């Protein structure tokens, strides 16, 4: 079983599903939904098998496959996954079926083809899996760019208010970042002796000046994608306009490509430049944490609010990565997973709320919990997970990031902690204004507000809640997978964790 080409099959399978769904007749929307859902479940099953096959403590990169593509340029279809990629692939495989289920009726309100909507979701899944599974820089770049196309149409064709503006802004921001990266990719190819293989490139010595420029090219693309302050302005627009399911994938997975890229490409390929730029990256992360949290407090649009909370969380992830300790790095990767679950859940629940009310404005709600007790409860839980309450999964990761960075850089950790307080403010205030307090009389006149969660929606939220609680109490299965990969990344940049009390071998050698 360990020789099964998991990664290439996982990448191609959703694409095949997308073709099947797209070819279904337009007047059979139910069939399209069912096929898409079943297909995404198959991908999930395959991913679970892959997870089981993955040898914890084995090679850093597993499931390696390589086929020649463009021999003239040394481009290969090379797939390989380390622990970080593996957990992200798992996250995608879990989220996509839930998003499909949650988006069951989303496409119907838009007058556009329903099968195409679900086909686009599957195409998006293909590109997302590809981007995490690629171990060839060229292949990674291809998926990184192509990913924009399905998302662009999901936002632009099926989104809400201001969807055109948001879709174009999303596309242009990402494309600009991508083109900077293209220049760096070509540069890396030239200095690396015309190969794109990640492992070969990570052995190449690059002169300091060149390394810094190449780092910047990659980092800019990832900072826009993630997004870090000050490249974040596209996310609230895109997140606000995208249909809830697509928004959950956008924030839950797509943006992780940025932080994943920093871990996989910026740090191991340009270790010295990464260390040189680290203070700047930390500063961006900190500003993001505070600034986005403050903006989130002031939002009146639910989806935009959730988008801003994500930017704050990405600040945490950035701090975790650039602290250069194993704890903080593990925390950052774990945060990527947990944030995908928690914010994914929050987006989906908010989407259910908005679909019922027909409005995304917080002021249009008020006391909704009296009409929709279960939905309000789930929203509250998602909010608590999002503010990293102990017992929920994000707490573990946030805590790891904070202690990991405290050991090396106390001021950063202290400032980041302020973000936790602000998180409580924006989440609790949002929950209070929408579901608590006196009932807004206008709500009783809206039909949708009398229907609490139906079975389909319960099936959507239940696995996410279960996972958040489970990983909150017992994160070991995930951290076991992540830890060696993060350790290897830290080795690549030549940083060792500061010893708590006794000196380590390396320190003794100095």
């Amino acid at each position: 079983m360990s020789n099964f080409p998991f990664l290439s099959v996982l990448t191609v399978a959703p694409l095949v599903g997308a073709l099947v769904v797209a070819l279904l007749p337009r007047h059979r929307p139910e069939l399209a939904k069912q096929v898409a859902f079943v297909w995404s479940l198959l991908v999930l099953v395959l991913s679970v098998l892959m997870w089981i096959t993955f040898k914890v403590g084995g090679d850093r990169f597993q499931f390696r496959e390589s086929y020649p593509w463009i021999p003239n340029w040394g481009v290969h279809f090379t797939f390989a996954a380390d622990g970080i990629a593996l957990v992200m692939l798992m996250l995608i495989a879990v989220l996509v079926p839930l998003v499909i289920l949650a988006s069951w009726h989303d496409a119907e309100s838009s007058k556009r083809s329903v099968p195409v909507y679900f086909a686009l979701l599957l195409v998006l899944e293909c590109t997302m899996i590809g981007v995490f599974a690629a171990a060839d820089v060229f292949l990674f770049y291809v998926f990184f760019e192509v990913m924009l196309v399905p998302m662009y149409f999901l936002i632009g064709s099926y989104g809400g208010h201001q969807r055109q503006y948001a879709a174009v802004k999303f596309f242009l921001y990402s494309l600009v970042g991508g083109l900077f990266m293209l220049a760096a990719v070509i540069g890396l190819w030239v200095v690396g002796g015309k190969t794109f293989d990640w492992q070969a490139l990570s052995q190449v010595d690059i002169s300091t000046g060149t390394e810094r420029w190449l780092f910047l090219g990659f980092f800019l693309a990832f900072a826009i994608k993630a997004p870090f302050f000050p490249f974040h302005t596209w996310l609230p627009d895109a997140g606000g306009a995208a249909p809830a399911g697509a928004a959950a994938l956008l924030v839950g997975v797509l943006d992780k490509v940025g932080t994943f890229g920093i871990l996989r490409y910026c740090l191991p390929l340009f270790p010295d430049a990464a260390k040189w730029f680290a203070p700047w990256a930390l500063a961006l992360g900190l500003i993001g944490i505070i600034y986005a949290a403050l903006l989130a407090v002031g939002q009146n649009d639910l989806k935009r609010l959730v988008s801003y909370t994500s930017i704050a969380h990405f600040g945490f992830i950035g701090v975790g990565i650039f602290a250069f300790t194993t704890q903080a790095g593990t925390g950052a990767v774990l945060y990527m997973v947990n944030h995908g679950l928690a914010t994914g859940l929050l987006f989906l629940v908010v989407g259910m709320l908005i679909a019922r009310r027909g409005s995304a404005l917080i002021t249009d709600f008020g006391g909704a919990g009296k009409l929709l007790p279960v939905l309000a409860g789930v929203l509250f839980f998602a909010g608590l997970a999002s503010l990293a309450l102990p017992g929920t999964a994000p707490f573990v990761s946030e805590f790891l990031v904070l202690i990991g960075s405290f050991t090396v850089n106390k001021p950063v950790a202290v400032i980041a902690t302020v973000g936790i307080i602000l998180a409580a403010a924006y989440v609790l205030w949002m929950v209070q204004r929408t579901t608590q307090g006196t009932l807004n009389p206008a709500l009783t006149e809206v039909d949708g507000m009398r229907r609490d969660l139906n079975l389909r929606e319960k099936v959507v939220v239940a696995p996410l809640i279960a996972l958040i609680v489970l990983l909150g109490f017992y994160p070991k299965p995930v951290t076991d997978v992540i830890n060696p990969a993060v350790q290897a990344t830290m080795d690549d940049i030549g940083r060792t964790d500061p010893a708590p009390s006794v000196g380590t071998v390396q320190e003794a050698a100095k």
Partner: protein
Amino acid sequence: MSELKLPSIDYAAVAPILIMLGAALVGVLVEAFVPRRSRHLAQLTLALLAVLAALTMVVLNADDRLITAGTAIAVDGPTLFLQGAILVLAAMALLLIGERALERGGAFVAQAAVTAESADDRRQAEGASGATEVYPLTTFAIGGMLIFVAANDLLTMFIALEVFSLPLYLLCALARRRRLLSQEAALKYFMLGAYASAFFLFGVALIYGFTAGVPGRSSGVDFATINAAVTESPASRVLLFAGMALLAIGLLFKAAAAPFHVWTPDVYQGAPTPVTGFMAACTKVAAFGALLRVFHVAFASANWDFTPVLGVVAVLTMLVGAVLAVTQTDIKRLLAYSSIANAGYLLVGVLAPSKDGLSGTMFYLVAYGFSVLAAFAVVTLVRDGDGEATHLSRWAGLGRRSPFYAALFTFILLAFAGIPLTSGFTSKFAVFGPALAEGRAWLVVAGVLTSMVLAFPYLRVVVMMWLSEPGESTPTVAVPGALTSAALMIGVVATLVLGIAPAPLLDLATGAAEFVR
């Protein structure tokens, strides 16, 4: 000079050129003797057969590496590759030109000289049968281009330039609709083209003067002599630089590089759309073929002298094309500015003096030619009662009315924007990679930055087509005839295939990337 000796000519090697020019002459006879009803079919068949025959000869000559007809014609890898490219793209353009299903009498009028807006003119526009002279004209132009990329001395190059330019000036004036624009385009192209030719000729004269006095060599304008003169000539370098500059002006004019680009939007807009496609694809191949040969063979040793200047031209071209494309409201003008920007990217490839740079540039030319022809094929389809609807606002909501063609056009636009899995991406990589390897990082950075700007106008069209609601005035897409369909599908499939599996063409280009000197 005691006696004149006739140079020996390798007729097989120059056969593609002879076939095209011969076919053009036969086409003139067909025009005179074949009855009017069957002329169109006869001419189209003749032209396509000639292209096919010439292409066959190019393939049969594939291993030729020689200089023939004295030193006038060089048949080597780049010549054959570019001749093949011109012929394949010309065949697609001929399919577009031959389309008669979209409009009664086709996209061309019989008499270009009729006063615009006169009664005669209106009758002509209403559906008088179109001109079939377009076929011999096009065939002449193709023949001229085949010589242009094979020319091994500057005089042959000048003659080839005229042979392919003059028919193009005429073709521009033949649009069935919007006659005034078409006539203006032709006149503008002709005037500016004449100036460019004059510059070129003046440059030839100066270079001839520069080659005098090299020990052991008589002066001349063939490339080997020039190359020797660049390193050995006792004459003033001013002659060389002035000559190079004037030659470059002539060639960059044809290539539509800034600041010699001003004719491009007007001519692209005014010319009949199939001819615009022909110019955008084939003229570009020919012009860059000549540029490559002049700067890689004749002036190779003056690399350090021309690179900074041409580099500035390249940056300016990319910048002008990208920035002005943003403000366009007419799809043909937008594509014109996009073609200017692409000329800039191609110049980046020209300025990478390596085998990879040469093969990358040639790859780019082919890939771009296919995409741009497909783009103009779609433009011919989007029409209303008054012919093609080229104003962008008219394209709003096209994705709803005609999802299939809108999807094809979207794909072409994504290719222009350089999204991976399209030839637009692989071809950009093919020129930027070698340029960076040769230390031209500033050109690559400029290319990347302008690509960002250029993405915006393309995206705007995509938004128009898909995300806007169809308005009252949204035209429908005419159902294309078999010819346009064929050209469109060839272009789209080539754009896809060259994006996903570029290796075979890259191999071909790499194998061909060696000039005979």
